[in-house]
């Protein structure tokens, strides 16, 4: 490349001084970004993928952070050597940033219009001009009825709209570079596709450089020109998105690509004629006048995995909570071996708890931080004293921890001493302690990194083979479901819109909603993804 790039990071090393000693957050990281280009920094949690962006935006607290070496050149000038005033001037005006969770980055007590205009008035734009530009931006990022919504507060918008507002705010001063840190991770697949498309359009319009920080190979395939793969603070691979996917040089990249779900064999449906263990008929749940779950009917066979997919607000979690009696159903029945669990009395319900267990989405929150692993797992025996005499608890906890692939010697540790994937294993061990027949997994792996995700899924499949478990697997991630489920149920707005064997749902979906959902999910292969995008655009054009 002849011209100097817009932004260049050279040999950046950042350390964090913690009480446990020095942690090298990133080591010798170099990359560059040109005008009109999209660079993705791909990495799992803890890989240091956000650190270089934080260094650019002066967001690293020093101490405990320390920029050990390296330079960050913006149009040839080292920003690390600039005065803090000069840097503040650069941030927002020339380099803007959007974050993963727009709700926590919008101030809840100011109207969104005011907040967008404020970024401009803060940099010296007159108020009237700022207001008209803010309105223009809200229209541009696709906020419907933007004149009226100018004076609305952040909570009055949906997640996707909030992210659009953040983008509007970032673009207010026509920056040369937009840094997007996991911009679509908290969004539904269809909304994710829209936001990514919006980012691409805006980039083409303004010619800005887009730096995208993500953990999702699908997002990389969708928008990135070039990609930098990071692992434990170092760049392990760099190149065009397509080269990196098709010809990964580093073992870590290969592992990462192999772990991406949605490429394996689909499971054949179980034989018919087996008596279902769970039969749900017309289950309905109202919250006041809001219908969260409307006339849901489904069956689960022994040893079967039934996946429930849908976007947020589709009622899939309400279904799970109603089946577990965390919420009382408004009407309908759910027969567990012929007994209706919706109307079951307390005593019968207590024994049912042994048969149906749940694994929650976020293991950090579902494990009591003040209980040791032993206490957490053995609580099942304390609640149901009939399972096991106290003298055998310890041995059984050891066995369970072994079964989920944890070191049984760590049973006196506390949840925070484990990684996210290990914590989810603890949660699985806890649910297995009751020897259930059915485990309801509510987004059980969506908080985990891709490679950890695949490990946990392998564990779940293995346990199913060994113990004959059934799973009701609630997820928003279609590729994951594709590899794992026997049957798939698609939900939208509290209703089941389609259900069938996994192959049928993915290869011959009948409903438009299902087709949209599948089309919106991202494939890690840039070429396949490009084809899908043109199909999607064609579909939208109809």
């Amino acid at each position, binding site marked *: 490349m002849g011209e100097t790039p817009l932004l260049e990071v050279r040999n950046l090393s950042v350390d964090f001084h913690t*009480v*446990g000693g020095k942690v090298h957050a990133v080591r010798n990281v170099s990359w560059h970004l040109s005008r009109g280009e999209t660079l993705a920094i791909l990495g799992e949690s803890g890989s240091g993928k956000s650190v270089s962006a934080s260094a650019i935006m002066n967001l690293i607290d020093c101490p405990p952070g320390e920029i050990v070496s390296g330079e960050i050149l913006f149009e040839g000038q080292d920003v690390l050597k600039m005065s803090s005033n000069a840097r503040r001037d650069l941030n927002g005006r020339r380099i803007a940033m959007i974050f993963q969770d727009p709700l926590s980055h919008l101030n809840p007590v100011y109207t969104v219009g005011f907040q967008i205009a404020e970024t401009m008035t803060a940099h010296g734009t007159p108020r009237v001009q700022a207001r008209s530009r803010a309105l223009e931006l809200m229209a541009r990022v696709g906020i419907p009825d933007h004149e009226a919504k100018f004076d609305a507060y952040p909570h009055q918008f949906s997640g996707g709209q909030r992210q659009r507002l953040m983008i509007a705010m970032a673009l207010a001063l026509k920056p040369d570079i937009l840094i997007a840190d996991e911009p679509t991770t908290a969004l539904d697949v269809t909304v994710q596709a829209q936001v990514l498309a919006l980012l691409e359009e805006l980039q083409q319009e303004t010619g800005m450089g887009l730096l995208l920080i993500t953990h999702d190979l699908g997002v990389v395939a969708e928008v990135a020109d070039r990609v930098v793969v990071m692992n434990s603070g170092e760049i392990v691979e760099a190149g065009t998105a397509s080269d990196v996917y098709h010809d990964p040089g580093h073992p870590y990249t290969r592992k990462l690509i192999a772990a991406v779900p949605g490429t394996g064999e689909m499971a054949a449906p179980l034989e018919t004629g087996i008596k279902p263990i769970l039969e749900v008929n017309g289950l309905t749940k109202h919250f006041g006048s809001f219908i969260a779950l409307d006339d849901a009917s489904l069956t689960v066979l022994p040893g079967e995995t039934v996946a429930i997919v849908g976007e947020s607000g589709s009622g899939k979690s309400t279904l799970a909570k109603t089946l*577990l009696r*965390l919420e009382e159903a408004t009407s309908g029945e759910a027969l567990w071996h012929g007994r209706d669990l919706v109307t079951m009395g307390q005593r019968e*319900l*207590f024994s049912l*708890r*042994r048969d149906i*267990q*749940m694994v*929650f*989405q*976020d293991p950090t*929150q*579902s*494990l*009591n*931080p*003040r*209980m*040791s692993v032993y206490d957490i797992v053995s*609580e*099942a025996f*304390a*609640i*149901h004293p009939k*399972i*096991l005499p106290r003298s*055998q608890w*310890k*041995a*059984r906890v*050891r*066995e369970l921890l072994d079964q989920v692939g944890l070191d*049984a*010697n*760590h049973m*006196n*540790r*506390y949840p*925070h001493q484990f990684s996210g994937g290990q914590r989810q294993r603890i*949660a699985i061990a*806890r649910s297995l302690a*009751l*020897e259930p027949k059915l485990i309801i997994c509510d987004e059980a792996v969506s908080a985990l990194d891709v490679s950890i995700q695949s490990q946990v899924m392998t564990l779940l499949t293995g346990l199913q083979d060994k113990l004959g478990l059934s799973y009701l697997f609630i997820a928003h991630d279609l590729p994951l479901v594709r590899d794992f489920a026997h049957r798939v149920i698609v939900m939208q707005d509290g209703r089941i819109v389609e259900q069938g064997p996994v192959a049928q749902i993915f290869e011959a979906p009948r409903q438009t909603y299902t087709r949209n959902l599948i089309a919106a999910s991202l494939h890690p292969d840039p070429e396949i993804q490009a084809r899908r995008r043109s199909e999607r655009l064609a579909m939208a054009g109809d």
Partner: protein
Amino acid sequence: MTTNSDHIPAQPSATEDVPTSPAKQVLRMLWRDKLAFFAAVFLILVILCAIFGPMLFEEEATRQDLRGRNAPPFDFSRNWLFWLGGDTLGRPLLARIIVAAQNTMMVAAGAVAASLAIGTTLGLIAGYSGPRTSQVIMRLADVIMSFPSLLLAVIVLYMLAPSVGNLIIVLAITRIPVYLRTSRAEVLEVRERMFVQAAQVMGASTRRIVFRHILPIVAPTLITIATLDFAFVMLAESSLSFLGIGIQPPEITWGLMVSQGRPYLTSAWWLSFFPGLVIILTTLSLNLLSNWMRTALDPVQRWRLEIARKKHG
């Protein structure tokens, strides 16, 4: 359910995390936080004074010696009990402070413990039960809070005889709402957490959920409030004593000593100063210790006390 009987006890392996004896571990963590360590030492001293003080110095503390009236402190030629000076009747201040520790501690600890226990229990019930019970409890708390606590104390103590027991009851009642409201607010938040739901799914009883899952999360906040309240109760007791409806002379408390010394502030400052200093030191120690305890009880924070502290440059 076939696996119930067929597993073999595993061999304990060498790499198992061996917990050191709890007492030793607590002492080690206390030593790491030097401020908390000295606070603990001071509090032990106060407790010893409270237990043995009246037995040893009762006589000295009440014997009047008119030659030692308002004797200035730090006069080391006199008996060591006079090193902090003498009061208006020539009684040695140091002895009186030691003797007063018992009443003061009894009233303060009694009132704080009672209001903590009652307030927390009611707060847990209000937070975890249905809206009706919760409403009744909360309105009850509102009634107590809307009543000026001093007025309540005056009325109750006017009707009942002023004694240590009655004083504890009155002070405890006025402080209940603090714990009640705090614990209810925390319970309302904690009960929605995912691990509480996980326990429900396992079939845990309400009692188990409240005591095993919710209370341990709420407790540190309440204990911190209780230590702050300790000082408040000591001072409230002194104002009641000042009004003549608290502890009656010749019985003494630190608060009473402060208020007795008040008219002499310009001529004999030490009469109020030393008892006041002891009140401050006791409260400060309690705060430091509760701060330490908060960290020590939290498994996520505990490492701060377990690893060697680096020297700050």
